């Protein structure tokens, strides 16, 4: 099965996860067009 990026949507949750996992955050602003 092909792996895909598990994008988060909630900014505060992302920061909480980053602190817990000792990781940095990748924030992508995209345009669906």
């Amino acid at each position: 099965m092909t792996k895909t990026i598990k994008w988060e949507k909630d900014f505060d949750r992302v920061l909480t996860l980053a602190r817990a996992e000792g990781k940095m955050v990748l924030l992508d602003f995209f345009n669906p067009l």
Partner: protein
Amino acid sequence: MGAVTYPNEKVVEFIEKHLVPIQVLFDSQPLATKFNIQWTPTVITLDEEGKEHYRTIGFLSPEEFIPSLMLGITKCHFDRGKFSEAIEISEEILKDYPKSDAAPEAVYVRGVALYKSTHSADPLKEAYKKLQSEYPSSEWAKRAQPYRLL
């Protein structure tokens, strides 16, 4: 990015291992205003407090995107005085992606991080020489020119 780079297996694996990814629409508030988003795609590397350390604008291929993310992580460490971590990742960029657009800046950041760690000017001079010999047309070769006088 969504059609080519993000589905790439190496990109997926790198992000899963090193980053917490969040994707939002370019006009999503309050983030679009907070980060002054004018172009898409804009990809920003933040620390765990939400502070920006690096951004790229526009499409990047998988071969360019991974070293770009590595450089973002390098900058996060550098900006917070974690020089040994910044040196380690910048050296990985130079080993694994020496021909990437991120490589010249990695040379520069590595040199400055070594200087800040050792208080010796030698790493700055070495960075200048490497940039002149291997990346002479890069903007980082120009920025390192004062180091030739050290």
